């Protein structure tokens, strides 16, 4: 059973349409979504191979916290609590501008909006940038 599932490439903010090729419940390939208005049946090398990371052994599926030289799997609740604590600590000790936020071109506009909101309204710094400028 093979089907072609239209979706949007997750690699960058361009938003190209792709068809994920799904065989017996697993993604086996990707190709351009022919009539998508953004990419019009074309893709870059990342888009053509966007399916490769889905089942990659290096893919992170759970939050990890560093303990000494190794990482430990923790729950989302635990991980977020730790991040909040550390950010609060840095802000209290060295001021809001001691913290910077790096957003991602792989997230949606809305997620990036929320990140700058967190940075400006919660922490109180304008130190916001994104990976596409690094």
């Amino acid at each position: 059973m093979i089907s072609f599932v239209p979706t949007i490439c997750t690699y960058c903010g361009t938003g190209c349409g792709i068809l994920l090729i799904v065989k017996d419940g697993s993604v086996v390939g990707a190709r351009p979504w022919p009539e998508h208005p953004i990419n019009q049946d074309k893709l870059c090398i990342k888009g053509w191979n966007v399916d490769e990371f889905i089942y990659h052994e290096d893919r992170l599926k759970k939050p990890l916290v560093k303990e000494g030289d190794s990482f430990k799997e923790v729950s989302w609740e635990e991980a977020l609590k730790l991040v909040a604590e550390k950010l609060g600590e840095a802000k209290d000790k060295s001021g809001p501008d001691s913290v910077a936020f790096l957003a991602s071109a792989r997230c949606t506009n809305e997620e990036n909006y929320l990140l700058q909101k967190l940075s400006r309204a919660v922490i109180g710094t304008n130190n916001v940038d994104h990976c596409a400028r690094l």
Partner: protein
Amino acid sequence: MKNYNKVIQDIVRSMLEAGLVEEVVAFGQDPASVDILPLFITEPQDAEKVVAISYYPCSLAKLVALYGDKDKKTGMVLRPCDARALVELAKRQQVNLENIYTVGIECYGVVKDRAGNNEIYVFPGDMEIDGESKPLDEDMLAPGCLRCEYPIPTMTDVSFRLEPKGEVSVTANTEKGKEILSAAKISSTEGSPTDISAIKERAARWQEQDFGELMKMEPGERLKYWLSQFDKCIKCYGCRNSCPICYCSDCYLEPGRMLIEGEEMPPEKLFHITRLMHVGDSCVNCGQCEAACPMGIPVSKLYHMLYKELSPLFDYEAGFDLDSLPPVSSIRDEDLLKTGVELD
């Protein structure tokens, strides 16, 4: 208007119902979407999604070779270029033609894109857009189609002709084709074959125009032209990924395969010249490489032009006879001597 699709849907449905095939590969529209996508159909009721619109965004032969099951009885609804690609893939042991039942649509060209998701049918001298008949606008057709001289899928089991005003005629070309038509309870239409002189004339005119302007150049100038085109390449590998003749699962152009170091990119000139050497002798002019190119390199023109040079030289027509092997694998020393090549 819907009659065009109805007959082909009836054929697909009856192939599945009669158990002739387990799966049919065709282009279709999901009721929830206007987009035309490749479909692998297993349920007879899904046959109503199949469309015969003159728009053909990728090679189904390539998809079947990559993702299909060689042991599964498979039906396919193909354009002539794709049917030829299927024959070429069979020569290269990538598909098992014994298990494939093919229904070919006579094709006078497909449109580059469907602005406004129109329902478009192209005929030799005119076209029908959303039920309205218009004179043929050559600018709307894909460049490869304008150069195409093979509108009739003689190599498929059943060939299928759409005519203006919704007329459809169907012909069985093989024993398997007769099985398909008897399953669908359709009788083969005995009629005059399509007059393809207008298509031949158009192909000759466009080949003259497209290749002529290149052949006018001095060899050095022509090389410079192509090298400057290759300079635009961003190495998306889209041409290779869309090409139905490019079949190697372990491609020579991938890094770490002797030619290119691991994690390196191939130099642009080498990339295209390697691909040209591998597929140039068997190009079926489907135009998928050029359609996939984000940089607008006229790659299909290059492959088609080389094919047209090699074809008479080696007396080889790609995509028709299963027993005639591509020149690259069947060439002998004396053939090379004939062409003026000096052997060591």
